[in-house]
């Protein structure tokens, strides 16, 4: 199968993820969308690895997974804390960081 199709799929997933980040307000959904974008990137990396016939892309994909796991831990902790104090998971409610 032509690896280029995987790239199309990656682009599609990334776009969906990005749109979700921009449109949705629920922090959990937002988070899932971010994960979607990361995984789209991973897919693209792996596809490129196949295209070029080396392992660089696959190695980077592992790194991305590690980083994403760490990010999830921190992010979920923040979301839980915010939810406890505000009883809401909407990102728009947490808009106090402004001038």
């Amino acid at each position: 199968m032509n690896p280029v199709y995987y790239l199309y799929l990656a682009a599609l997933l990334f776009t969906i993820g990005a749109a979700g980040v921009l449109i949705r307000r629920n922090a959990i959904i937002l988070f899932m969308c971010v994960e979607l974008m990361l995984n789209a990137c991973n897919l693209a990396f792996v596809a490129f690895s196949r295209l070029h016939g080396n392992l660089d892309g696959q190695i980077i994909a592992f790194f991305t997974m590690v980083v994403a796991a760490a990010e999830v831990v921190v992010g979920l902790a923040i979301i839980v804390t915010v939810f406890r104090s505000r009883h809401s998971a909407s990102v728009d409610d947490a808009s106090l960081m402004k001038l």
Partner: protein
Amino acid sequence: MENLIGLLVAVPLLGAALLLCGGRRLDGKGHYIGTVLAASSFAIGAVLFADMLGRGEHDRALHSHVFSWIPVGGFHADVAFQLDQLSMTFVLLITGVGTLIHVYSIGYMEHDERRRRFFGYLNLFLAAMLLLVLADNYLLLYVGWEGVGLASYLLIGFWQHKPSAATAAKKAFIVNRVGDVGLSIAIMLMFTTFGSFAFAPVLAEADRAGEGKLTAIGLMLLLAACGKSAQVPLQSWLGDAMEGPTPVSALIHAATMVTAGVYLITRSGAIFNAAPDAQAAVVTVGAVTLLFGAIVGCAKDDIKKALAGSTMSQIGYMILAAGLGPIGYVFAIMHLVTHGFFKAGLFLGAGSVMHSMNDEVDMRKYGGLRKYMPITFITFGLGYLAIIGFPGLSGFWSKDKIIEAAFAKGGTEGWILGGAALLGAAITAYYMTRVMLMTFFGEKRWVADENGNEPHPHESPGSMTFPMIVLAFGSVFAGGLFSLNDAFVKWLEPVTGHSHGDSPLSAAAVTGGTMVVLVIGVGLAWAQYGRRPVPRTAPRGSLLTRAARRDLLQDDFNHVALVQPGQYLTRGLVYVDHKLVDGVVNGTAASVGGLSGRLRKLQNGYARTYAVSMFGGTAVLIAATLLMRAV
């Protein structure tokens, strides 16, 4: 012997350092330290003088290199002294009169609690003045030149609690700065023209430089001399400088510092000789000032200001003589020395009178003092006879020679200059007789002041009368002694050169003319102030009298011509600064502030807005990268 020259300057400098840094524990003996050090400087000068007399006429100059001050590549500025006959004359005058005035000040400043500081300043002045006349290059001379300016400023403003004294000090300092600019430009011109500013190379090569350059240097030197010697147009500070204690007026503003301009011109004789235009400017300044000062002196009721006008006028004579070239240099210096004696004596006499009259300076409130203070009367009287040129006394010998030399200039110029000098002699006789009559003759006119303190005129203490007596001897005999066998001419000739002009009038005719104008001047003054009683309040006077009382409108002129345009300029600049410069600065600040106020609204705290900008930014970056690839 050479090493003694440096000591000459170092001794009074040590005195200044001791007295000014020594603190209160020297209060009780500061004046003795100052006087002894001044006297030692005079003693060193006398030793050097004796040594100089022992050597041949052309090998009298001594040279002493102390250290290299600024050695930079081809540029050398040295601290080096040169003692020739001209410097020697000044050294003896400065230290001699200086010592006498130190002695006088012991009595005069007795009741002043800051007497130690006063003596410190006097010693500082001596050191700076000696440095000025002993320097072997113009840059070191400039150091001394500024040093005497500083000492003069400190001493004029010595009673700085009086606003008038503080103002007078500032005025003297600022007017002198104008002249000093001239000296510094002259030194720069010398360096670019001759590659040096030591006397020897500059003066030896003077006639090889172009006349235009020399004229420029000469005019700048003249400007410097005008400032320091209170010549028109920079004369306005001298009258106000009389705010200082009287010994200061005698030493600095009569005998020595104000004659520095004459020294400068005489020393730079080689430059002036080769620049006739500059010489013409010098004689013009001299002739104008000698009349200007004399006229001002006629109208003043303040005894010190009348004498200040006289000083200005007498220095005008010297500048005139110095401007005549080799005919006049010797006589300029000779008049300078005799003037140093009699004018210092006159000032000390005036100080003695003030001392006994509760510091009253208005001559209309003196009168008849000869009975109360005989020594002051006699010494002042001898000084008076000397300055008006009474036959046989010092002023007669020196001033007569200048008038003769002015006529000897030749042509119409000679007649104009000679005529001015002769007219000046008449006015001198008039105003000095006026001072004499108003102070020592007539009825007593003093009364008790509002506190009921009536002055009780009395003779001053010995420390004050002794210097006056010594100076009176100088006023009587110095001129005759100098003229014996042309001793003074022969003494200075190797340094300044000397030539006889061809006078259209014989020496006897000039002397006769001088005698005639002398009698006219004295007679006029007697008719006005001797025959009739002197009114206690000044009459309104003619237009000229009123103008002369205001120093011939010099301050008004300076105010209108210089101060006001300056004020308008500064006001204009302040306006531009406020409106334009501040406008640009404040406008920038305001627009940045406004812009940031708007930009601030982009920070709304919504995470999704930030995400949009991140995505937008990334998209733009990718688009740009692709575009660059495509191109």
